[in-house]
Structure formats: structure tokens, C-alpha cells
């Protein structure tokens, strides 16, 4: 019986890492730009779509195609930043404007995908092969998701804590006006943050497509879970998003051993409500 536990915990870990990757970008944008990016699900979608198009058009191997997909997602997020975020964020009422504008962008992008690609789901094979240890069966693709997720986190943490860009980013997150006063190019920092967030979401999309199948709807479903993770982890709390994301994945896997998946989902949303009531800054943020 223990083999099933190991396998389920591993499934949960890979699913949780995916949630964490998507939530990471969302919480970064909130932490640094102090806005909610409703188009974030579409960056995830662009990662998947980029992967599908590149593989179909060129047939290059999966790891290279993933890189291409990340570039596609980063490019799309750069455009979104340029058009509806960069010049709007500092205006009075900028928060609400960006919220609505990014929501509009999400509709635009998903409808554009339906209009051009259509509604067909698509299979893309990632890293092939299955690892069988005892009675435990793990696909290499899921292993890649877990390790890639950890790699992204380590790199991001190093950048934020050790590099000049990281220092500037933390300064802008703390107080954009003061950052400007000490000579930081706030606009550039914000754009870089936005693009990096989009790129990470795109990476998640490209890594998850071999597991979940590409679907033009994939942006919608992931965004809801990402919001749950961000709120539970604390909005703007990068470490919190990761812990909350992975915990959510593991919790779903564990609960799935005892109760129907529908109930597990209801329990998780109840947890969200509970967190909002008791610790509205998130479980893992200092309560103010």
C-alpha cells in the first residue's frame, strides 16, 4: 500500500509545483507592481500554444521547443505590459484600470486563440519514458516539472536576494516613489518583473502540456487555482506562493485517497475562505 502513497504524493508534488509556478508570476506582479494581472492565465496558455505550434511547424526536440515557448510567452507579456500596464499603473485609479484592462486582454487573447487555432485539444509528447521503482510508477515528464520548478525557484531567489536587479526590484516593491528618488528606473524594473512573470507562467504551460494535453481553455482553469494559492500564500509573498502551491497539490493528492475529488475541491475553497477570515494577509505572511 505504501507504493500508492508514494505515487500519489509524487503526483501531488508535480501538480503543486505547477500551481506554484503559475502563482509565482501572479504574486510577483502583485508584490512589485501592486496590481492584479487577470491575463496571467493567458501567459500559461501561450506557453502551451507556443509549444504546440513550434513542435508542429519545426519538429525540433521538446527541450528546445520549451525554450521557444517561454520566449513566446515572454513576448506576449511584454506586449501586454507595454499596452495596458506600463503607462497606466501610476495613474490615479491605476489599480482598477489595470485589473479591468488585463481582464479585457485575457478575453481578447483567448478569443483570438479560438478564432485562429480553434477549439481542438492537442497532444504533445514531452520527455518520454516511465520510471518504475518497486510498485511506484513515475513519468519522467513529471520529474522534469518538479526539478524545473525547483530550479526556477532557486534562480529567482538568488536573483532577488543577490543581484542588483533583485535589490532594485525589492526597492520598487517597498516604495516606488522612494525608489525613483534614489535613481532606480522604476519603469524598467516593472517591465522586467512583468516579463519574467509571464515567462515563468509560459514555462509552466509548456511543461504541463505533455501531462494535461493542450487545450485552448487551459488558461481559464489554471488562473482560479493560481488565485487561491496566491491568497493563501499571501499576496506579494513569493516564498508563500511556492509553499502554498506545493501544499495545495499535496493536499489534493492526500484528500483524494479518502474522499471524492469534488469534496476535496470544496474543502480547498473552504480553506481559502477560512484564510481570508482569519489571516487575510495569507497563512505565510506576517499578520499586520
Amino acid at each position: 500500500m505504501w507504493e500508492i502513497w508514494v505515487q500519489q504524493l509524487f503526483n501531488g508534488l508535480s501538480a503543486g509545483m505547477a500551481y506554484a509556478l503559475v502563482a509565482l508570476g501572479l504574486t510577483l506582479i502583485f508584490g512589485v507592481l501592486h496590481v492584479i494581472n487577470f491575463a496571467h492565465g493567458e501567459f500559461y496558455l501561450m506557453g502551451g500554444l507556443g509549444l504546440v505550434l513550434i513542435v508542429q511547424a519545426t519538429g525540433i526536440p521538446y527541450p528546445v521547443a520549451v525554450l521557444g515557448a517561454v520566449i513566446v510567452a515572454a513576448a506576449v507579456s511584454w506586449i501586454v505590459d507595454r499596452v495596458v500596464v506600463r503607462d497606466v499603473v501610476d495613474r490615479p485609479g491605476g489599480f482598477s484600470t489595470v485589473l479591468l484592462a488585463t481582464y479585457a486582454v485575457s478575453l481578447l487573447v483567448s478569443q483570438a486563440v479560438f478564432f485562429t487555432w480553434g477549439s481542438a485539444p492537442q497532444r504533445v509528447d514531452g520527455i518520454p519514458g516511465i520510471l518504475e521503482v518497486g510498485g511506484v510508477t513515475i513519468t519522467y515528464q513529471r520529474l522534469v516539472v518538479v526539478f524545473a520548478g525547483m530550479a526556477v525557484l532557486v534562480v529567482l531567489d538568488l536573483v532577488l536576494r543577490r543581484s542588483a536587479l533583485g535589490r532594485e526590484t525589492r526597492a520598487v516593491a517597498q516604495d516606488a516613489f522612494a525608489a525613483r528618488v534614489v535613481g532606480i528606473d522604476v519603469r524598467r524594473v516593472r517591465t522586467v518583473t512583468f516579463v519574467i512573470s509571464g515567462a515563468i507562467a509560459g514555462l509552466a504551460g509548456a511543461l504541463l502540456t505533455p501531462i494535461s494535453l493542450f487545450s485552448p481553455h487551459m488558461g481559464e482553469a489554471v488562473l482560479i487555482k493560481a488565485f487561491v494559492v496566491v491568497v493563501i500564500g499571501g499576496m506579494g509573498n513569493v516564498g508563500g506562493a511556492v509553499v502554498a502551491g506545493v501544499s495545495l497539490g499535496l493536499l489534493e493528492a492526500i484528500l483524494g485517497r479518502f474522499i471524492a475529488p469534488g469534496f476535496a475541491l470544496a474543502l480547498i475553497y473552504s480553506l481559502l475562505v477560512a484564510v481570508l477570515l482569519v489571516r487575510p494577509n495569507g497563512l505565510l505572511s506576517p499578520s499586520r
Partner: protein
Amino acid sequence: MIFRRLGKLMAAAAILALPLTAHAADAIRIGITMPTQTLLGKQAVQAAQTAADLINQDGGVAGGSQIELVAYDDENSPVAGVAAAQRLIDQDGVKFVIGQMSSTVALAILPVAQAAGVVFVPTVPKHTDITKAGYDKLFRLNSTVAMDSAVFNGIIKDTAKAKKIAYVIENTDFGRLLLDSIKKSLEGTGAAVVYEGFYDLQQSDFGNLLTEAKASGADTLVTGGATVEQYANVIRSAAEVGFKPDNIIISPGSLNANVIKLAGASAEGTMSSDIYLPSIDTPLNKRFVEAYESKYGMKPEKTEELTFEGVWLLARAIDKAGSDDVAKVAQTLHANAWETPRGEVRFDDAGQAISQSFVVAIKDGAIGRR
């Protein structure tokens, strides 16, 4: 003065008579609602249009009237479905509404159709309640779960000889209804459903569910539903988690080319039952398949055939009745047997279509009769 009055009266009468004279060449509108943003929904509307095109090519119906199709997206949601139906009836003036993929949507539209007195032909929904409303202008084309059960349960019990079944399916009316039917047919046989895994319609990662199915020691996997991107992924994920059942069986009517495309080699040997195969050898089916394939690049399957039939049967009935009067058309539909791509179809008193059923399977990457 009296001549001027008379003149005005005659002019008014002439103007009022104009629409009546123009009527003979007017198009007859058939309205359709489908979840056009999903793959199957879009393909269904394409098939309906194919029927309209073929009918119009043949010269139209009831003295040359052309068939005009009006399509709206019902988003697989009852709210959007009712709005679409109202729009068709009130704004577009249609007297014949067909379509829907989801039983929930069809059940929501039914009272609207009944109140407006239009002919209502749900093409794909399977829920038994649809034919229980006692509406004489309702015609349901797809088989019900109860009708499929006989053949389907036969596949589980006799062909697959399943003893322990893992049931992984969408959390909808359909998914639950099918489970009840399977359980009932297994009573007293010693076989049982050992795992029930319901997933919600937004789910895309089935690793957890299939791992539980593997843990249950099941020898058969039963899956299916309306969203092929999900149940095809269930089949693929089963292989990935190391769950290797002796047989994989899909809900009746859900085995189509998309399953092969999305699940790949892991779908080899998958069985199901169905009321239509593109390989059926009749002149009408050949004509339908050829027309659809030449325009859309793929063979039509059951959802396409049923939706084609919705337009085709209405047109044939309007033609036979000689008018688009809803009462006459409904009576004509009830009173006759009809030639369709899937074979002969007739309707029972409740409006349920009755036709034959086949056992199908994926062999060497293609679907054929088993």
C-alpha cells in the same frame, strides 16, 4: 372623394399582400444551439450546415424553399442555452430548434420551446427526462443511456468479462446515470465497481484518479463522457501511472477519431458501442461522408451524423407534409420511418428515435466494428 378612399384602401391591401406572395420562395429557418467553442460543438454545426447545403442543392423543400441555418453558442450552459433559444424564436422567427450537446441545456430549453410551440429536436443529449415532458413536437435523436445499456452492459459482462471495474468519469448527470445503469446490470453477477472517480469539467491532470484506480486492483477501466480532451487523457494517464487493465471500455457513443489522436497507442483495444459508424455502406451515408469529408478534411462521426440528421429529418418531414406548419411537420415525423445515414429511424410516442446499435473497437489505430 370616395374613389380616393378606395384607392388608398386598394394600395394598402396590395402592400399587405406583398409578403404573402413573396412567401413561396422564402427560406425556412432552422435554429441550432451548440457549444461552438468546443471541438465537438463546432463540428456538429458544420454537419448541420452540410445537411442544409445538400438539401438546397437537391432543390430545397415544399416547393423550392431553401433551408437556412441559424446557429448560436449555448456554451454548454443552461443560462446561455435558454438565451440562445429565445433569440432564435423571438428575434430570428425560427419554428424549428435543434442541437445542444448537454442534456442539462436541452432540459432548460424544453419548456421555452414548448411554450412557444416550436418543434424541438435535441440531437446529442441523452438524458431520459427529455422525452418525459409529454410534448408532441419534441424529437430526441440520440439513444438514451437505458437504450445503450443493453449493448454496453453486454460488452462489460460478456465481451470484457470484467470482474472489478474502475469507473473514472465526468461529474455530471450523464456520468452518474451511466454508473447507476452499470451497477444495476451487475447485480447478482459477482462483478462490481471497485473504484468511482468523478472529475470536474475543468480538470486536466488525472494522475491522482488513475493512481487510485490502480490501487483498487481493477481489471477493467470504464470512462467516457462528452469532453474528449478529458476521457482521452484519462486513458493516456492510465498507461502513465502503470495502470494496465485487461480492457478499457468507453461510454456508448464516445469512441471517435479524437480518442486515437489524443490518447495514441494507449487507446489500442478500447471498446464501445455506438449507433453510427462512418463506414456504414448505404448511398445516403456515403453521400453524407463524402460531402462532409471533402469540405472539412475529416470523416464525420456520431455527433456530426446526429446533428446532420436534425436538419435532414426536419427538411424531409417539411417536404412530405408540404408545409412548414409545426403541427403538420410533427405529425409527419411521428407517422413515418425515415432513411438516415445511420440506417432507418422511427420515433416512438414520446418522440424518442429508434435505430440499431453496433459494438466498436480501436484496432491497429482505427475504429471498426468488433
